[in-house]
């Protein structure tokens, strides 16, 4: 080892001062030569003969010098530097070629790096918690009723927390909005109501102050709150003395005990401005704590070291079974399960992201194929130069290495430009994406992992596109190339075939991308053309929240809302105003079980459920939901009147297939404020899609807001006024009732619907973009190959024309060549495209993966583009002057 190191050090010395070594060596060799000569003379040879024999005996001087030089210096480094110099010289000599190759590669690398930065941030980067891989969401489900994921009741949670051996600890959360007053304008604070141990389960200590203690979670403890760093800065001006002071939430004083660092967010997708309070201090959810029924607490648990996921799942199943046995009326039919926290938030986007990553990889592949083709062309036109080098003593591998180095320089240049493009692309992606579309969008950036990825990719790419030309160069026939001479020195049939195979491959890959993009575009079109069942144009919704501590009784909510609604309706331009909560699609759905009076009560294991809305009488008119039978609500359907309800067509058809539902009675479980009271069905209205545009209409039940008010009053108005004017008007009316009421959650329904398809739009747009890129690259590839083929065949074409072939014949001949390429490309591409399309599966909507129309359109477009790309060279072939072509020889 030591001897090796010494040798290396000596080589470096030799490399630094090569002259000394070589002069010494020369004089040493001449001494040797003299000695050999005198030996030969002593044997009786003539002077001349003795010198000649001595030189033969010693070996060629120049060769010995070369060996000596290689041994003493750093030949690898030297040839490398030489190659790099050659490479730059070569690239400069052919600026057009270099620019095209570098740009093509930069596009490919840039797109890959940008998409990879999204994939990395979303799928690979660990969540910002201590040992995040130990964290799992624990949920209840009722698979037989199609409820895959649901929360826990507080009592069931306590039971789980105390009686399990697999989790270090388990915490629960729920989201809520409280009104923050006393600091300027009243605002709505995004609030997470949590069990006090949440921060310790996540393993993140507060930035300042303390986390909650078990005592904070006990009934009767003084209310406490922890602020996020973001809220502390934005709302409290980063007041250093905030700890220990009180803030008002829903008009109740809370003591600030801690501030959490900005990188901490829980729930994972929550806002950066938020606050946390113990469940027991929340005006709404604290009321649910004493009950074993209900599924409102979302759990996160930290798995004990050494416990396997399978073990934990078994234990959860056992706990559920025990709970079902002990409290069958609420727990029967429910089981528990868990999944990694990260997975919960990436599940929806994972397949889309992987599809995009695959697509962008294919784009890079096409780019590489294109560059390989360019390089092949160049290597062929350089074959004379390379042959001269070979004749002058460069080994085959020396030449192959030189070519590979050239492509490495090319690859690196493309990679660096690509990274610049990626920076730009990531910014563009961020604009394209609403924060709701992907988990932690703001974490997406070009960091060192992405940089490493891009560099590695450019290296791999340069090997990929450099290998074919280098191999051809290494196997080239030197003598042949030199003899053939001139610029027309041929390329072998092998290289020409390789070129065609590459072009065919490009068409096949482009077909895969185009078919995928086509399917997604058609899916997206279907999604957009879905009729949600209600009108969204010019419909604005906004919420007026009121402090629950000041308005504790539902009748107060109802009265307030009725008052506000009347005032707003009296404003010019706001006549079409109603109350409705939660609004379809934009607010998320509330699913409740129900019974039909006079039928056997639902079994505990099979629930009939419907989505629920609480609305004022004008609601159906404002949203354009048609009344199909019976009547809509009236202003007489108030708290003191008999309970009534309206159902949707889907509910009527599913549960009253052969009878008239109007006049029958239903009990909606959980409809506040009197969940068990039967309600008379008075009307049937049209279906709406309330979960998402992509999901078929759910059965709906509507209750009059006056009879079942919910938290906050949500004003829905269809008006030609600007949103700002509407909000100002509502704000003013609300302030006249109570000056501390903020207007929040303002949203245009059409914008909301658009946002709800942001994710499909994002992936469709990107895949479309990649497919277009692939098409352009493939067209360039075909153009290159056909152009080259024409230039090689100029001679042949000249002869044909001279022998009487018409221009049309020549044109057809070249176009046939193009068409053959396209045909085989499509032939290979079709099965690949079909296979890939089936992988898209869940991303498709309302369309089959082998949609014949999409396949047909793509095939026609590709064939047309191929022929178009071949047209220019074909026309050039057509104009070949036989005299010029033959003289060319």
């Amino acid at each position, binding site marked *: 080892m030591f*001897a*090796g190191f*010494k*040798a290396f050090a*000596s*080589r470096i010395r030799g490399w630094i001062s090569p002259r000394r070594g070589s002069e*010494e*060596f020369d*004089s*040493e*060799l001449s*001494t*040797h030569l*003299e*000695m*050999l000569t*005198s030996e030969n003379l002593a044997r009786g040879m003539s002077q001349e003969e003795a010198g000649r024999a001595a030189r033969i*005996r*010693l*070996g*060629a001087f120049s*060769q*010995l010098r070369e*060996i*000596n030089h290689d*041994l*003493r210096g750093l030949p690898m480094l030297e040839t490398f530097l030489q190659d790099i110099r050659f490479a730059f010289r070569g690239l400069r000599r052919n600026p057009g070629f270099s620019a095209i190759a570098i740009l093509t590669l930069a596009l490919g690398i840039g797109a890959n790096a940008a998409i990879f930065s999204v994939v990395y941030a979303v799928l690979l980067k660990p969540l910002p918690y201590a040992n995040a891989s130990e964290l799992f969401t624990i949920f209840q489900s009722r698979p037989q009723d199609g409820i895959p994921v649901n929360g826990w009741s507080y009592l069931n949670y306590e039971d789980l927390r105390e009686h399990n051996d697999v989790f270090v600890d388990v915490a629960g959360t729920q989201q809520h909005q409280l009104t923050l007053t006393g600091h300027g304008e009243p605002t709505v604070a995004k609030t997470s109501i949590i069990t006090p141990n949440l921060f310790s389960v996540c393993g993140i200590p507060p930035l300042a102050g303390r986390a909650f203690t078990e005592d904070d979670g006990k009934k009767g403890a003084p209310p406490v709150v922890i602020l996020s760093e973001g809220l502390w800065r934005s709302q409290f001006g980063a007041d250093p003395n905030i700890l220990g002071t009180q803030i008002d939430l829903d008009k109740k004083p809370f003591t600030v005990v801690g501030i959490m660092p900005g990188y901490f967010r829980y729930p994972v997708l929550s806002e950066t401005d938020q606050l946390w309070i113990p469940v027991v201090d929340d005006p709404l959810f604290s009321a649910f704590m004493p009950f074993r029924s209900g599924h409102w607490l979302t759990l996160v648990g930290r798995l004990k070291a050494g416990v396997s996921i399978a073990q934990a799942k078994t234990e959860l199943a056992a706990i559920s079974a025990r709970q079902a046995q002990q409290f069958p009326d609420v727990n029967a039919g429910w089981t528990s399960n868990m999944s990694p926290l990260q997975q919960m938030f990436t599940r929806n986007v994972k397949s889309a992201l992987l599809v995009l990553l695959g697509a962008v990889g294919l784009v890079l592949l096409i780019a590489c194929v294109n560059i390989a083709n360019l390089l092949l062309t160049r290597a062929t036109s350089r074959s004379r130069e390379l042959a001269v080098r070979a004749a002058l003593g460069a080994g085959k591998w020396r030449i192959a290495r030189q070519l590979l180095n050239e492509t490495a320089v090319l690859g690196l240049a493309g990679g660096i430009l690509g990274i610049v493009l990626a920076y730009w692309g990531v910014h563009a992606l961020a604009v394209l994406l609403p924060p709701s579309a992907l988990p932690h969008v703001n974490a997406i950036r070009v960091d060192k992992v992405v940089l490493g990825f891009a560099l590695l990719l450019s290296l791999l790419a340069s090997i990929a596109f450099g290998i074919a030309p280098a191999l051809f160069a290494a196997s080239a026939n030197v003598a042949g190339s030199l003899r053939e001479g001139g610029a027309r020195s041929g390329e072998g049939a092998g290289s020409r075939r390789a070129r065609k195979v590459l072009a065919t491959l490009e068409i096949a890959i482009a077909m895969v991308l185009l078919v995928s993009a086509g399917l997604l575009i058609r899916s997206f079109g279907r999604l957009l053309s879905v009729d949600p069942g209600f009108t969204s144009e010019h419909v604005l919704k906004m919420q007026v929240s009121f402090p629950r501590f000041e308005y504790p009784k539902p009748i107060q909510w109802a009265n307030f809302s009725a008052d506000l609604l009347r005032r707003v309706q009296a404003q010019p331009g706001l006549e079409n105003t109603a109350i409705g909560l939660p609004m379809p699609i934009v607010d998320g759905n509330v699913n409740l079980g129900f019974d039909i009076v006079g039928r056997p009560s639902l079994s505990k294991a099979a629930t009939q459920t419907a989505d629920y809305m609480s609305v004022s009488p004008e609601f159906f008119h404002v949203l354009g939901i048609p009344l199909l039978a019976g009547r809509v609500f009236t202003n007489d359907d108030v708290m003191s009147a008999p309970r009534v309800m309206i159902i949707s067509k889907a509910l009527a058809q599913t549960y009253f297939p052969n009878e008239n539902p109007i006049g029958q009675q239903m009990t909606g479980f959980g409809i506040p404020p009197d969940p068990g009271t039967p309600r008379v069905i008075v009307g049937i209205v049209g279906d709406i899609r309330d979960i998402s545009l992509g999901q078929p209409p759910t059965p709906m039940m509507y209750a009059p807001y006056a009879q079942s008010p919910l938290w906050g009053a949500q004003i829905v108005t269809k008006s030609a006024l600007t949103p700002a004017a509407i909000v100002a008007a509502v704000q003013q009316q609300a302030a006249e009732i109570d000056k501390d009421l903020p207007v929040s959650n303002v949203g245009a329904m059409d914008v909301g619907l658009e946002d709800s398809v942001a994710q499909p739009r994002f992936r469709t747009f990107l895949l479309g973009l990649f497919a277009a890129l692939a098409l352009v690259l493939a067209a360039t590839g075909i153009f290159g190959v056909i152009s080259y083929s024409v230039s090689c065949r100029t001679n042949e074409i000249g002869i044909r024309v001279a022998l009487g072939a018409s221009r049309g014949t020549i044109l057809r001949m070249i176009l046939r060549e193009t068409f053959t390429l396209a045909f085989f490309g499509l032939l290979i591409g079709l099965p690949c495209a079909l296979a890939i399309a089936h992988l898209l599966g869940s991303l498709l909507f309302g369309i089959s993966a082998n949609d014949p129309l999409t396949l047909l359109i793509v095939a026609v477009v590709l064939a047309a583009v191929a022929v178009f790309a071949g047209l220019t060279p074909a026309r050039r072939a057509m104009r070949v002057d036989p005299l010029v072509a033959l003289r060319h020889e």
Partner: protein
Amino acid sequence: MTQDRSEILQGTLDLMVLKTLQAMGPLHGYGIARRIEQISEEALRINQGTIYASLVRLIQRGWITGAWGTSDNNRRAKFYSITKSGRKQLDAEARNWERIAGVIGRVLGIAAHG
């Protein structure tokens, strides 16, 4: 497998150079080449120049050193001599060689000793 010219492996030549320097003391390149030819009873007619590649390698590893001096007939020549670590290396290589020769001998059915 017989070939006209004995193909000597690089390492073997290095080993022979070391052995020659150990046995003969300081020598110049010509002397080393002659000595190896004589010892091998002219069986090894090497391109004498290749000796120099061997010498460079050995110097780089620190197993021999070179110094300019004057030869018998008053020529300026570079004399090489074996170093301490060179001797150690030679011992190790020689033992290794014997071991391999023994193994090969046994494999080929030739008695290595006697």
